C-alpha cells in the first residue's frame, strides 16, 4: 500500500494514542453504496486511506462482448443508475460515430432534454445526500419530492422510472407522448423556486458550512493530475465542459453557462451542482421551445426498428426487418472509436472496437465516478475521519459506475 496520502498531524498536538485500522463500509450508509475504505487512524486523524472497490462488479464490459449493440443499452442503464438517459446517450453516440450516422434533429432534442432531466435528477440527490451525511436530514426529504416529479416525467416518456433504455442507435425508442409538454412546463415553473428553497435551507446553515467550506481542497493542478472531470473539476476552477468544448448533439444551438468555482473544497463541489441544475433547467426550456417536428428515428431499415409496429403484422418486409434486428442485430463497420459526453458525474466515454460483427469486440467504459473516487488520494487537508465523509459525499461517486 504505497499510493496513499500521508497526512500531517496539526502542529503542536501530541496525542498519546495507538494507531487503529478502521473498516468504513462496505455497508456504511455514508459511502453511498458498497465502497469499503480501510482507514489508518491516529486518534481521530486519518493517516492513510485505501479504498477497496469491486463489490458491485458485474463485468459490464465482458458481458457487452456477447450482446448486440441494441442489447447493450440496458447494461448502460445500470452504470450510473441515477441518470440512465445520459449513459444511453453516450453509448448511442459512440456507435453512431462508428456507423457514420446521426439521429434526426428531433431525436437529438429529445435525447438532450432527457439527459438534462437526468442531470437534474442526479444532482438533486447529491444536493440532499451530502447534507444528510453531515447530519442535516431535512434537505434529502425535499429533494426526493422533486426527484419524484422527474421520475414521473421519465415514466411518462419511457415507461420506466429508473432504467429507461430510451435511446436507440439512430434515434430514440418512441416519440414524446401526448400531454408531455404541459407536464414538463409545469415542472419548469416550479423547479427554480425549489432550488432557491434548498439554498435557503443550507446556505446559511452554519454547521453545514463549517463542515464543508475549506474542507477537502483540491487545487486545479491536482484535480487535472488525478483525472477528475465534471462538476468536481469545475469546482477547482478548471473551465471545461464537454457540452461546450466538444459539442455533441445540438448543444451548440443552446445557450448555457459553464459553472466554475475557485475554491475547490467540498462546498464548492456541492455549490457547482446546485448552480448546474439552474443551467440544465434553462437547457430544457430551450429544448421545449425549439423542439422541431420530424422523425424520432433514423430512416435506415438495417439499423432502426420499424416505426409503425402495426406493419410488422401485415408486411413481410417489416416482419423480416424486425426479426433480423431482434435476433442478429446490425453489423457495425470494422474500426474503433472513443466518444465522450458530459455526463452528470463527468466525462463518460465509450471506447468501442468493432470487428465488423453485430457485437462489439471490446467495449471500454470510461466511468467518471471510477476516476473521481481516486481524488481521495489528492485531498490534502481532510484530517478528521468526519471530514472524510464530507469529501466522499461531495465527490459524489455512484458505486454501480465505479465497479461497472
Amino acid at each position: 500500500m504505497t499510493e496513499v496520502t500521508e497526512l500531517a498531524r496539526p502542529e503542536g498536538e501530541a496525542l498519546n494514542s495507538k494507531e487503529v485500522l478502521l473498516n468504513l463500509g462496505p455497508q456504511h450508509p455514508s459511502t453511498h453504496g458498497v465502497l469499503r475504505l480501510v482507514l489508518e487512524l491516529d486518534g481521530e486523524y486519518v493517516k492513510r486511506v485505501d479504498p477497496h472497490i469491486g463489490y458491485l462488479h458485474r463485468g459490464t464490459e465482458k458481458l457487452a462482448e456477447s450482446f448486440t449493440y441494441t442489447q447493450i443499452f440496458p447494461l448502460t442503464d445500470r452504470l450510473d443508475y441515477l441518470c440512465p438517459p445520459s449513459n444511453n446517450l453516450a453509448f448511442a453516440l459512440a456507435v453512431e460515430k462508428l456507423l457514420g450516422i446521426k439521429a434526426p434533429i428531433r431525436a437529438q432534442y429529445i435525447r438532450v432534454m432527457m439527459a438534462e432531466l437526468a442531470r437534474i435528477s442526479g444532482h438533486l440527490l447529491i444536493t440532499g445526500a451530502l447534507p444528510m451525511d453531515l447530519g442535516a436530514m431535512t434537505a434529502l426529504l425535499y429533494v426526493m419530492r422533486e426527484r419524484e416529479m422527474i421520475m414521473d416525467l421519465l415514466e411518462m416518456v419511457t415507461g420506466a422510472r429508473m432504467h429507461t433504455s430510451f435511446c436507440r442507435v439512430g434515434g430514440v425508442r418512441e416519440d414524446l407522448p401526448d400531454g408531455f409538454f404541459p407536464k414538463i412546463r409545469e415542472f419548469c415553473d416550479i423547479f427554480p423556486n425549489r432550488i432557491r428553497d434548498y439554498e435557503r435551507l443550507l446556505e446559511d446553515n452554519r454547521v453545514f458550512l463549517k463542515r464543508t467550506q475549506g474542507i477537502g481542497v483540491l487545487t486545479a493542478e491536482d484535480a487535472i493530475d488525478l483525472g477528475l472531470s465534471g462538476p468536481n473539476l469545475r469546482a477547482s476552477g478548471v473551465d471545461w465542459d464537454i457540452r461546450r468544448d466538444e459539442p455533441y448533439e445540438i448543444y451548440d444551438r443552446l445557450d448555457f453557462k459553464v459553472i466554475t468555482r475557485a475554491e475547490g473544497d467540498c462546498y464548492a463541489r456541492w455549490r457547482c451542482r446546485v448552480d448546474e441544475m439552474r443551467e440544465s433547467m434553462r437547457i430544457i426550456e430551450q429544448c421545449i421551445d425549439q423542439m422541431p417536428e420530424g422523425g424520432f428515428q433514423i430512416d435506415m431499415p438495417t439499423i432502426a426498428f420499424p416505426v409503425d409496429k402495426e406493419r410488422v403484422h401485415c408486411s413481410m418486409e417489416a416482419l423480416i426487418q424486425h426479426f433480423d434486428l431482434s435476433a442478429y442485430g446490425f453489423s457495425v463497420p470494422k474500426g474503433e472509436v472513443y466518444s465522450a459526453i458530459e455526463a452528470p458525474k463527468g466525462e463518460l466515454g465509450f471506447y468501442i472496437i468493432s470487428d465488423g460483427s453485430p457485437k462489439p469486440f471490446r467495449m471500454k467504459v470510461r466511468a467518471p465516478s471510477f476516476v473521481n473516487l481516486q481524488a481521495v488520494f489528492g485531498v490534502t487537508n481532510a484530517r478528521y475521519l468526519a471530514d472524510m465523509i464530507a469529501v466522499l459525499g461531495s465527490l459524489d461517486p455512484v458505486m454501480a459506475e465505479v465497479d461497472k
Partner: protein
Amino acid sequence: MSVEPSLNRAPILERFGETIEDLGTAHDMDVFVVPPEKIVEFCRFLKDHPELKFNFLSDICGVDHYPETPRFEAVYHLYSLPNRCRVRIKCRLGDPPEVPSVTGVWRTANWHEREAWDMYGIRFQGHPDLRRIYMWEGFEGFPQRKDFPLRGYKDKLNPFGAEGPPPTQPDLATRDIP
C-alpha cells in the same frame, strides 16, 4: 460529435519519427503506435510540450486480440485541456504483456492500470501498488481475456464454471491488506 482534429503532428513526428507508427486519423482522433519501452518518454513529451499540452489522461485500457499476435494492447486516451484536442496511443504487447507504468506522469493512471492488470494481466512495470482492483485478492486468471470462459473456471466457489484448470498465472501482485 466533432473532436477538433487540430493536433499538431509535426513536433511529435520530428522527435519520434522513426520509432513510432502513425496510424493517421480514425474517427476524428489521431492514433499513434508506440513501442512499450518508449511509452513513458512519449507521454511525458506530449504532456510537457509547450504546444501540445496533453495534460489530461482520460483512460487506459487493455485489449486482448487472442489468438492473434501480438496478443495484447494497452490503449491510452489523452486530452489536452488548453487545446481541446484528443489523441490515442497504442502499445502492442506480447504474452505475457508488460509495459512501463505512466503513474509518474499522471497520478490518475494508478487505478486505470490496476484495472488493466486485474482484467487482462498486463503488468505495468514500476507501478507503485499493482493489486487487483475489482476481483478479490487470490482470484486466479484474468477475466476479460478472450480465452477466459464466460462463467469462469470451476472451483469450490463457482460450481457452474467451465471444466479445466485455471490458467497458471501466479498473482505476484497480491499483497496483504495492512
